[in-house]
């Protein structure tokens, strides 16, 4: 490659514009959402080298017993940086890390913790044991050096629906499903905030690689019925009202299913279905086209098998 002066200037300009995560160190900036509860807002983007895979939202909660984390990011390096930031913030060591579901942007970072303090639903642990290696390979392929040293570790503590009390600050645990086979949502009783995991997306299109849409709807109903204040979604900005993000997630999955069903009935192939117009009401959603095309890949074959009639004749 020949470097020209103009090329050097352009490269310099690009360096100034790159996101914080491109420098090789994760930048973790918790924002207080209530008394002793912070959200780290992940990039509302696909997993990519520019963001180091740090796309999921993380919640940090200060309790008398120590620091509680809900999800811990994509890699060992991320979770180490997260732990340092969280412990400085609260002045107490991490005593619990919940993994809300199996997806690697939320849970690969558990490699940084003693598995005995890492808790997940039984379905999540089983799915990680089954699928974790594949997710790990995919993350290394996409993120290279960001993943250095990250091993697949299984959560050592199985939880079920109920309540966990950290010496006076308790979290309500909701065992749900739909975004994946096992989705944990939590409510912090002191602040009233709900932590939705990936059952709830906000201004960032929901992803469906392991989705069961009817179960997802049931879970969203359950979250709506559960008393709560503001809501920290799995991806996208905080929802102060606590209702908007749930409604938006439901609106998207309903639209998605109806649109893809109609696309199969109209004879469209997958390429065309992925290029269908996205309604204006979803204009605020990041990664909408990207997730629509992923969802076509996830959902279309099943819809075709259900909707296209058999036409074969005996040989």
């Amino acid at each position, binding site marked *: 490659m020949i470097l020209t002066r103009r090329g050097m200037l352009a490269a310099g300009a690009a360096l100034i514009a790159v996101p914080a995560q491109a420098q090789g160190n994760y930048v973790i900036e918790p924002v207080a959402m209530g008394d002793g509860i912070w959200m780290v807002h992940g990039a509302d983007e696909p997993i990519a080298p520019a963001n180091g895979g740090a796309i999921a939202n993380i919640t940090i909660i200060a309790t008398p017993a120590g620091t509680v984390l809900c999800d811990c990011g994509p890699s060992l390096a991320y979770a180490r940086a997260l732990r340092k930031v969280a412990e400085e913030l609260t002045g107490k060591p991490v005593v619990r890390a919940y993994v809300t579901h199996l997806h690697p942007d939320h849970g690969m970072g558990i490699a940084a913790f003693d598995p005995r303090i890492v808790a997940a639903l039984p379905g999540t642990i089983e799915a990680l044991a089954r699928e974790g290696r594949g997710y790990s*390979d995919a993350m290394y392929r996409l993120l290279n050096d960001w993943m250095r040293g990250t091993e697949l570790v299984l959560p050592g503590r199985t939880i079920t629906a109920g309540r966990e009390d950290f010496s006076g600050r308790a979290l309500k645990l909701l065992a749900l499903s739909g975004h994946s086979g096992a989705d944990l949502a939590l409510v912090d009783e002191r602040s009233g905030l709900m932590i939705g995991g990936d059952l709830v997306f906000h201004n960032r299109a929901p992803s469906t690689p392991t989705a069961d849409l009817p179960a997802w709807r049931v879970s969203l109903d359950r979250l709506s019925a559960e008393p709560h204040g503001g809501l920290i979604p799995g991806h996208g900005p905080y929802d102060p009202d606590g209702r908007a993000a749930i409604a938006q997630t439901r609106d998207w999955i309903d639209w998605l299913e109806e649109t893809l069903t109609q696309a199969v009935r109209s004879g469209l*192939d997958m*390429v065309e279905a992925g290029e269908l117009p996205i309604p204006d009401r979803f204009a605020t959603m990041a990664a909408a*086209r990207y997730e629509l095309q*992923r969802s076509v*890949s996830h959902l279309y074959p099943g819809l075709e*098998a259900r909707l*296209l009639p058999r*036409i*074969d004749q005996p040989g």
Partner: protein
Amino acid sequence: MWEAHAKLLFGDAPVRFDPRVKVDFPMIAENQRSFPVAIDARAIPGVKRIVLMADLNPIPIAIDYRPSDSDAYLATRIKLDQRTPVRGAVQLASGEWLVSGGWIDAAGGGCSTPPVSRVKGDWAEHLGEIRGEAWPLSTGSSRLRLNFRHPMDTGLVDNIPTYHLEELTVRDANGREMAQMAIWASVAEDPAITLMPHAAADAALTIEGRDSNGRDYRAALTVARQSPMPQ
């Protein structure tokens, strides 16, 4: 690889890159075992043959299609073994080839991981199942969708020999050929194929296929009377 493929496929025939060959696919290869691709060359008159290929696949050609009495359109799903160019090449009556395409990044192994139905073990139970439907278009053609159940073994997995659907013909009510194609194992498991034969509403179509073990596949359908609601 392009030079080697081009020599085999095109020989000494003239070849031009032409953006009117629209090769369309999603921005992300979400599933490297099944990546949707559509080739639309309807803007080019006189297309005799459409070849879909991925340069860096171990089985580079996926489909070699002769739209004898059909619009120059083909959509299907292919396997991707790594990041690769995906191309559509169309041949005119003059023998000239027009080519277009683009790069797609992909996780490896689309051709070298076992088919889902081999893992589940139920492939033989569903072999021969064909689903399909045809809808009339305003142009007088119809949109024909065909989904076959077939493991489409590449021969690159677990000592399972290559076993794939290799021939497909669409005929009208009089048995006249409307569309004919050769199919390779780089087409995704359970091949899904979309064509546009020159068949209006109520036209009867028959489908004949054969796989590499000599098993025959037959299906029949009638083009619907009503086109679907536009979206």
